[in-house]
């Protein structure tokens, strides 16, 4: 039987996931000596791990080339897609926030606001719900720069502590939603390999204390 393939989001989520897997008894030593490899076997289970960028985790799982993925809710909200989102892993916590330059009343006046964000779909649906027409500009990194340079009236971004915002003269206007790492599963995989995946999910739920 082919190993169950798990895609982890590179970086912080990867470290937290590996730590969780280790505590669940999965041997992830292969991940410590990475070298140039891209696929890492789990020592004591019929599983293997691949590392990918957040958006690619969703793409791999949606297309079924990976059975399971660990990815932030921010990426899920931005990309959408068809898969099962079976657990909130509790780590990688932060929030989506609308931030504006200090001292500016965001809702005052009639002009159309311009919003800078890396998360254009999240921003669009947020303002749609508010029944506000806004102009959205996609910025790839350091979104705080956009209002400072005068490109936008506000930004939508993920915020952990708010320090970066403060240092750049921005304050949080409101929160759009909570973010944390999620466990996602391909729909066909869950049906075709129920036993193995169920076992894995139950272990995680037991660990998180969320079993039903």
């Amino acid at each position, binding site marked *: 039987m082919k190993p169950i393939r798990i895609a982890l989001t590179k970086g912080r989520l990867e470290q937290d996931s590996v730590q969780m897997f280790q505590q669940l008894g999965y041997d992830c030593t292969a991940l410590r000596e990475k070298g140039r490899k891209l696929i890492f076997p789990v020592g004591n289970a019929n599983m293997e791990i691949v590392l990918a960028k957040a958006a690619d985790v969703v793409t791999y799982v949606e297309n079924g080339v990976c059975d399971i993925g660990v990815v932030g809710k921010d990426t899920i909200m931005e990309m959408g897609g068809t*898969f099962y989102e079976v657990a909130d892993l509790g780590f990688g916590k932060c929030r989506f926030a609308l931030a504006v330059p200090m001292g500016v009343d965001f809702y005052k006046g009639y002009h159309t606001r311009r919003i800078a964000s890396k998360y254009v779909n999240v921003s669009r649906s947020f303002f749609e719900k508010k029944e506000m027409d806004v102009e959205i500009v996609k910025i790839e990194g350091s979104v705080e720069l956009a209002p400072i340079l005068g490109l936008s009236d506000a930004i939508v971004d993920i915020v952990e502590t708010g320090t970066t915002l403060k240092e750049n003269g921005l304050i949080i206007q409101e929160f759009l939603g909570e973010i944390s790492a999620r466990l996602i599963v391909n729909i066909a995989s869950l*049906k075709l390999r*129920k036993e193995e995946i169920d076992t894995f999910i139950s272990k995680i739920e037991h660990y998180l204390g969320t079993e039903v």
Partner: protein
Amino acid sequence: MKYYDKITPDGTKDLLFDECVLRSKVTQTLTEMFRSRGYRQVITPVIEFYDVFGKSAYFPPENMYKLMDNSGRLMVLRPDCTIPIVRLMATRLKNIPMPVRLYYCHNVYRVSHDMRGKSNEIYQTGVELIGSSSLHSDLEIVELAASGLSEISGDKYRIELCHIGYFKSLIDSLDTDDDTKEEIRCNVEQKNYAALNDLLEQFNESPAATALKYLPRLFGGEEVFAKAYELFSSNGAADSLDYLRSIYESLRELGLADRVIIDLGLVNQAEYYTGIIFRGYFSGLGEPVLSGGRYDNLISDFGLPIPAIGFAFNVDLATEKSRGMALEGQAPDILVFSVEERLPEAINYIKTLTQNGLTVENCVLDDYDQAVAYAKKRGISQIHVMDEEIEIIQLGEGQGR
């Protein structure tokens, strides 16, 4: 100005040679089975008026290709095969003796996310059994789907089965607004346990809410039924479970117990379907290769209350799976080369050969050496030269290719 004259539109592709052979084979396997069970083919236009699809909420406008006719009326490329058949039933076929068995082989067109590995042009073949809501017809259709899956994949398939009535009984027992109900449905569909729990918190420990929390986990084998009865059996839920169970029992008698998964959390398109819903999976494919269900209200949207059930195969996906199927040799058996004076004779000779089941190409080059070179490149092993008499030249195995 940029010309898009050398590429195909996003989400579409050209199919060449073996890909076409495979697709035809898979289609033929399925349609022959449909025909042998009394299904008759219909072909509907690829363009339909927008209103045919736009009147229902099942097909969001942003996912349809739209165009306009000469009178400025909005048209779409059909995103689905069932609705046009429903239109047909409510109009030209409204007096046909029921039940009616129909099948189709059609492309459908859906605008999907760019660059996510999805096709926008999907070749489907499927059936509709219209005018009966009996157990007989449900079983016939599910079994036909299973036979089709098995015919293409051998034993490497699963079919999952649900009755939307169970979910409807649960959700109707909750005292809440439609938006919240829809949110609950989405979270059940996505098996989003965490969000579902939070959302159902407000209903305290009402039996329906407790059952809904557990609903995404209600999938597996026979054991699912016991758990489902225990969780909730009022408000019609038990009837749906009884019904689903009798279908399951029949499928088991047919030796399909290992192939069938019950998933009571299969609640996508809950508005479209009214009874059983099912999907088929092949191992190694990340998305369903078949989907179907009972849609008793769809035809009444067009003014005629007739029950119906059907399913559609995604032939492109099914073909991907059967890529291993043995193919007949792609090269013709014989190349017939003829001198100019004997062309009509050569044509007759080719006809005789093909009548014996051979694949024969007519050589259109006028030089014999060129003909040999061509045959070698093309992988043809025999040249028949038509002159005073017919000379047969063997080019030998493996040459040219």
